């Protein structure tokens, strides 16, 4: 491996900007780190270069641990967004800088410089000053300079940020060619998804300091594992769907998916439908089993080869669509159609159409949605406005359902209607919270989130499972939560027989903590968990899986 990152973590002012990143980058690989601004991708690159120290974790280059090695001894070449050329030096002197530092003979330096200038297609520019070059040319010089000392790794920090589209395209190609010719392991940081697809052998996507997923572009696009990656890489429609015995149910459609694994009990999932996988037709009959719901054309945009449509679902509850843009109050379905599709069925705004899907991808996320549950619907609605819950739902791009349960917590009685509990069920932290949580868990809720009224986004998430059977589920839920909050995770091990008391003690040690606890055995649950849940000041997410 050329670059190995092992649990690299870096804080600024107590906030983890790079949070527990582990990654292997192979020899000669072109790896792109993609993420929105502030996701920690540049900090990670600087950590690899040695310009930023890390608080925790190790960095190895070609098997050599360089975590404590100074930048100038790491053997990396770094290209900056604003070129960072030495303005008082000519192109030749800029490129030869690293060679002069190493006391290379003048004739060798000249030879190497010629070679590099040919590589970046700037022959004959030796005696120019940076100020006399265009932006694209300056960045070529910066690339040549970074390669002069034959570094083992080339790092590029948003190298095209300051260039216009055409130059950018050219320079991309040049850098890709240079990289192939030299076979040098390269890491490029960008926020531009198109650029990432165009250049990457492999792609890593960062958000809130975490590396969410890494893989080849095609795989990540067609089979993302997280909501963030699904919506950040290209456009995506997210549906709340049900995973049942025959397939994935999206609205009225049942789609047999090769990803579908028959479940003993139907449960809610998040399904990704790419805009190009949506079909529209005049009547549901034309779509058959692919028919999802009726919709209305809201907006049409001509975009060259493709036509972009925005559809509104006529009955939002039939096929729950999640808003992908943060601000969008009403979620829209995004659709792209090719020219043949447009000719086959012409549309105009306001037209009513039948909507179907060709292909869905189910996210393996265990937290599909939230349901605020209380004895009355007024209380449930108040709970749905709790700041942490609202924040989590917004960040996870999911919705908060309302479910009044008059019998909530009553020892024997079941729910009035037999609708299953889906997603995570949320109750408020009250004196009988433990009893209510037990009631919900016994009636089929898999995850119960117990919330104090004042809780806000946690800085630290404690994780504990009561026995091994529930460990995978607890970890999966924890991962899902941690992807959306910039918090640190800590596993709590305890030998104490009174686990709940011990966990409560740990939670009370510092503010801003949250607990995720896995249980498989519900015997005497309310009694055991009363110290933790009843009137506590911290959010607790209980994950329950029956032992198989």
């Amino acid at each position, binding site marked *: 491996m050329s670059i190995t990152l092992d649990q690299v973590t870096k804080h600024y002012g107590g906030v983890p900007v790079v949070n527990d990143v582990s990654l292997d980058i192979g020899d000669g690989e072109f790896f792109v780190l993609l993420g929105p601004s502030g996701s920690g991708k540049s900090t990670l690159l600087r950590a690899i*270069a*040695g*310009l930023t120290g890390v608080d925790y974790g190790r960095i190895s280059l070609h098997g050599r641990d360089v975590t404590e090695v*100074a*930048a*100038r*001894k*790491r053997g*990396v*070449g*770094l290209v*900056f967004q*604003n070129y*960072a*050329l*030495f*303005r*008082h030096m*000519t192109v030749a002197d800029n490129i030869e*800088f*690293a060679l002069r*530092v*190493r006391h290379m003979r003048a004739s060798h330096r000249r030879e190497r410089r010629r070679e590099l200038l040919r590589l970046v297609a700037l022959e004959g520019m030796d*005696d*120019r*000053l940076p100020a*006399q070059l265009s932006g694209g040319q300056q960045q070529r010089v910066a690339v040549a*300079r*970074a390669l*002069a*000392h034959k570094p083992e790794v080339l790092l590029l920090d948003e190298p095209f940020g300051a260039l216009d589209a055409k130059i950018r395209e050219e320079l991309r190609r040049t850098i890709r060619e240079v990289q192939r010719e030299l076979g040098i392991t390269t890491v490029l940081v960008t926020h531009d998804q198109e650029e990432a697809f165009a250049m990457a052998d492999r792609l890593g996507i960062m958000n809130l300091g975490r590396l969410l997923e890494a893989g080849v572009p095609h795989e990540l696009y067609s089979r993302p594992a997280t909501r963030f990656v699904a919506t950040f890489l290209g456009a995506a429609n997210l549906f709340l769907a049900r995973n049942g015995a025959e397939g994935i149910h999206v609205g009225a459609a049942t789609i047999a998916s090769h990803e579908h694994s028959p479940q003993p009990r139907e449960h809610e999932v998040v399904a990704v439908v790419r805009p190009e996988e949506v079909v529209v037709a005049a009547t549901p009959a034309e779509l058959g089993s692919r028919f999802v719901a009726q919709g209305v054309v809201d907006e049409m945009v001509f975009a060259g080869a493709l036509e972009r449509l925005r559809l509104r679902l006529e009955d939002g509850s039939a096929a729950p669509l999640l808003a992908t843009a943060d601000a969008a109050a009403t979620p829209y379905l995004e659709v792209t159609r090719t020219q043949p599709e447009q000719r086959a069925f012409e549309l105009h705004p306001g037209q009513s159409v039948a909507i179907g899907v060709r292909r869905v991808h189910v996210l393996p996320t265990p937290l599909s949605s939230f349901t605020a549950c209380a004895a009355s619907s007024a209380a449930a609605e108040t709970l749905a406005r709790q700041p942490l819950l609202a924040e989590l739902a917004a960040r996870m791009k999911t919705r908060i359902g309302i479910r009044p349960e008059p019998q909530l917590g009553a020892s024997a009685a079941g729910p009035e209607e037999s609708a299953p509990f889906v997603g995570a069920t949320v109750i408020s932290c009250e004196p009988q919270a433990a009893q209510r949580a037990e009631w919900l868990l016994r009636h089929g809720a898999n995850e119960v989130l117990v919330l104090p009224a004042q809780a806000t986004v946690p800085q630290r998430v404690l994780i504990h499972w009561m026995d091994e059977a529930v460990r995978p589920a607890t970890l999966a839920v924890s991962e899902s939560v941690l992807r959306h909050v910039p918090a640190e995770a800590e596993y709590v091990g305890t030998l104490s027989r009174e686990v709940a008391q011990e966990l409560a003690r740990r939670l009370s040690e510092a503010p801003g903590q949250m607990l995720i606890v896995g249980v498989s055995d519900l015997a005497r649950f309310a009694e055991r968990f009363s110290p933790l849940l009843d009137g506590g000041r911290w959010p607790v997410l209980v994950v329950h899986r029956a032992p198989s």
Partner: protein
Amino acid sequence: MSFRKPNVLPGFGLTFGFTIFFLSAIVLLPLAALVLAAASMHWSEFVAMVSSPRALGSYRLSFGASALAASINAVFGFVIAWTLVRYEFPGRRLIDALIDMPFALPTAVSGIALTTVFAQHGWIGRYLEPLGIKVAYTWLGVTLALTLISMPFAVRAMQPALLEVQHDLEEAAETLGAGRFYAFRRIILPTVLPALLTGFTLAFARAVGEYGSVIFIAGNLPMKTEITPLLIVIHLEQFDYRGAAALGVVMLLMSFVVLLAINLLQAWNRRRHARAAH
């Protein structure tokens, strides 16, 4: 019909006229009057006046101490400017404002303040005395006063240039294998050299013309701690206007030569880079 380039300020004719008028009325005319006053002397009289041992001693002190003060300010002014530009620390704005104090203070006040501190029984002077270091009433005191009053010129000249030296330049040098000293010598220094020279020039020019602060701390012993501006004032007090004018002309010439030399150095430095471009 001529084409006029639109501009916020009135056109070339008007601004050039103003430039000439102002330079003439405020700079050139008084200087010409000075030369004229000196010219009314006989040549031999003039030479005798400006090359008397007392005058020569005063030049040595004035220009020597000014050059030393400007050099000190070039170095420490650079450090101060660097600290203010590069680091964020509590009280940075306060220190930034303090830099300008010597601008605003009547120079006599600076002189009195310095004398209070550095005189034989002053706050610091009393500790330097046993070490055999005398500040007040020596050339050291003169240099100290000149350093104090010319410091803001050096700092303010360098600050904008240091803002230009972005941190990534050092980081780029570092990833290319350069140590700190190498990066400073090859990257930072060449980038700020023009500003450094400008700072030196301004500090030097200010120091040469300084009068108020020096006379309090210098002691004004002829040949030892007497600066040229003081000598001029002494001549004036004796109603020897022509003598004063003669010394003034010499100061003017010497200052002009020094400033011209530095400006040529700057131009040469700029041309050197421009030449590299062809």
